[in-house]
């Protein structure tokens, strides 16, 4: 990793003054916007189009068997996991700041020590990301037990695919940040490595922002 930042054949000089990786990650995020736009649009187009239940916000009784299904989505539980994911962005900001400010004098007192620990904040980001994934695993399992699988109806297909894609992005982010944490533990991330943390952070914030859209459109708006 020590020299992995030398990504270009002609060093140092770039036309915009930005690092190549940073330019590339912004374009990647642009591309990801179209990816999630397609997923979210499909979910919204198929909203209310399922010919059989269960449904997200309404109870449903199977006319053939008489079995009753409650509304599937549990907004309070998901609100908690949403809050955790949003807080992870704060930890991410602190982790990046800690790496960028390494080598500068640490502010006095305990809070200064805590704020300057990139390991702590990288770990907290990972932990909160993993917590979110845990909530999602719980949510998926309980939905399946309640009778909604990816094959059941259009709601099941589009819901599990949309949130599953988001979950996969969070998983990739946790692995990415976990890798940075491992490097930090091994040799300590320095300000010159900050762009590695920076692009991971941009990705992480993007994944958070997408979740705000998903949570609003899928869970909150009935």
């Amino acid at each position, binding site marked *: 990793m020590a020299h992995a930042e030398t990504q270009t054949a002609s060093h140092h*000089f770039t*036309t915009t003054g930005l690092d190549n990786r940073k330019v590339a990650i912004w*374009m990647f995020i642009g591309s990801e916007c179209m990816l999630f736009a397609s997923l979210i649009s499909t979910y919204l187009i198929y909203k209310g189009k399922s010919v059989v239940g269960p449904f997200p916000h309404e109870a449903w009784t199977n006319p053939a068997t008489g079995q009753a299904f409650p509304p599937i989505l549990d907004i309070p539980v998901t609100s908690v996991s949403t809050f955790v994911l949003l807080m992870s962005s704060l930890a991410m900001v602190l982790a990046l700041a800690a790496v960028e400010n390494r080598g500068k004098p640490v502010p006095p007192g305990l809070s200064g020590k805590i704020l300057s620990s990139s390991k702590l904040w990288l770990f907290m980001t990972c932990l909160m990301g993993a917590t979110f994934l845990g909530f999602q695993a719980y949510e998926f399992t309980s939905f399946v037990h309640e009778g909604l699988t990816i*094959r059941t109806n259009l709601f099941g297909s589009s819901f599990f695919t949309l949130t599953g894609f988001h979950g996969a992005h969070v998983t990739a982010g946790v692995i990415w940040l976990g890798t940075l944490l491992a490097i930090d533990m091994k040799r300590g991330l320095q300000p010159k490595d900050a762009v590695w943390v920076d692009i991971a952070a941009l990705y992480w914030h993007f994944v958070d922002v997408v979740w705000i859209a998903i949570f609003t459109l899928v869970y909150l708006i009935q």
Partner: protein
Amino acid sequence: MATVAASPTYTTAGARRTGIMDWLTTVDHKKIGTLYLHTALFFFVVGGVEAIIMRWQLMRPNSTAVSAEVFNQLFTMHGTTMVFLVIMPLSAAFFNFLIPLQIGARDVAFPRLNAFSYWVYLFGGLFITIPILFNAAPDGGWFAYTPLTGKAYSPGQNMNFWVLGIQILGISSLAAAFNFATTIINMRAPGMNLMRMPMFTWMSFVVQWLIILAFPVITIALFFMQFDRFFGTNFYVSAAGADPLLWQHLFWIFGHPEVYILILPAFGLVSEVLPTYSRKPLFGYPVVAYSGILIGFLGFGVWAHHMFSVGMGPIADTVFGVTTMLIAIPTGVKIFNWIFTMWGGAIRFTTAMKFAIALIAMFTIGGISGISHASPPSDLQQTDTYYIVAHFHYVLYGGAIMGIFAGIYHYFPKWYGRKMDERLGSIHFWLNFIAFNLTFFPMHYAGMLGMPRRIYTYDAGQGWETFNFLSSWGAFLMAPAFLIFIWNFFRSKTRGEVAGDNPWDAATLEWSIPSPPPEYNFAQIPMVTSRYPLWDLTHPERMKDIPHSMDGWDEAKLRTGEHVTATGVHEPDVAPMHIESERKSAKELGIPMPNPTIKPLWVAAGILVLFSSLPVMYAGKTLAAFAMMAVGAVMFVGFLYAWLTTPMEDAH
């Protein structure tokens, strides 16, 4: 940083590999371009043979040369091959070879990612092509409309190869697009502001944005189809309430920008060729650039003109009809700019120039037939007939392929240091030009007489016989034309006339360095003062209307830091515009070059194994499929980590 005076000492690359390993491990954009070029020419032969078999079948009524099932595979694979495995990669060959040379860079922004893109393309291409040898190739049309391509109506493995293969190819295109867009944004030589970029780089830049924004949409559409076929979801299952138009919308939101992804690089190439052989700067350069951007924007707003016949209602039909007519304006602007570039020029009719002029003429015919189905009522008469086939071959063959041939003849001397034979080139051009028109012009009439697309045979007595007979002979004539090209291409590599640095007296940066270019491209990065920097040196009389300035120099010198000493004298790494003919090794010049590596190839192979596991699962061999998934995932993750943790260059 601003006062660093000493040039760093580099220890350049260890052992350079030779022979086949050199190609498997290369990260040099020029060699990767060469790989793209040859692989795409191979697939061109494959797609061409498919076309010739189809034309053999359609030459006479009620022919039985191939069955309906085989015919379905042939037209599906012909379209898929020509779009994804020929024209896009031929463009990618030029992106690779030309973009860094045109903007004065030593490589692309991410050389190893570039190698990765190529290997994913190769594996994806083989994945989707090889099944045709086992009579199991995709057979649902290149746009794979659901529900026909769903599990219920296409239960075989055929469409699995399509949906997975296009997914693999999408990874390649996206990775390359991030790479080239970053390269163009961030690695231009000092002084090369956007309005000084060569037009090919401009059009490529637009194309990268189209790929970045359009490919994710097809990725999702493909995932839905994949999930439907492999995991039993309901995205395209009408019985579950699914919208039968969802796939069509998602596909064409990608598919129409894709049309411009195919044509804009060729527009860029002829915008280099025409000024060179007209010995005049490109007429209205800024307008050509802006119209390219406008085409890119409008290209996202016209997709539903592919769907007029599905019954979207008068409002949607009207809106998409109008936007489609609008997009003709920037395209027409380009045509006039090219004509005015030639106007009053001292034209040399080289092979490249002939192909470029052919693009202008043939693309105009295709454009005009395109306008004729921008109007929904008119389109309803034409849709799904051979008139449409004629139209899109005039824009894709008459446009994209003609432009790419112009580019190959024009850039061959830079690529290999020798010229292609002009006499053979001329024969190739005329034979190809006549064969092309003989093939596709009669299709307009066959279509107007009602001959539908994609039929594997037809009855006599409907007035279609003569037109089909002519089209088939045209197609058969294309084969010798292409063989002459291939012979010329391979022979000229070793026996062509030695070209020198700038055989065509061209004006852009790539012609200021030796042919073929040394691995580092530029010994000293040139500082650019105008749009045609070489003509500033050699033909100042052509440059009187071209804006010049030293804009960006001071800023560039300051920002590079290393190149500026305390006294303000810049280091030899950046120099005023000059011609380099001396050839030294990167080591002698102290230029750090990325090390060759095989890891991107293995990461790509991991992706191939991962995707290959799904047809195995579909065949019911679940255990084997899971084993393949595990192996593929381990290869992918393992080699990716190995790649990312290996420095690209030796320590310095």
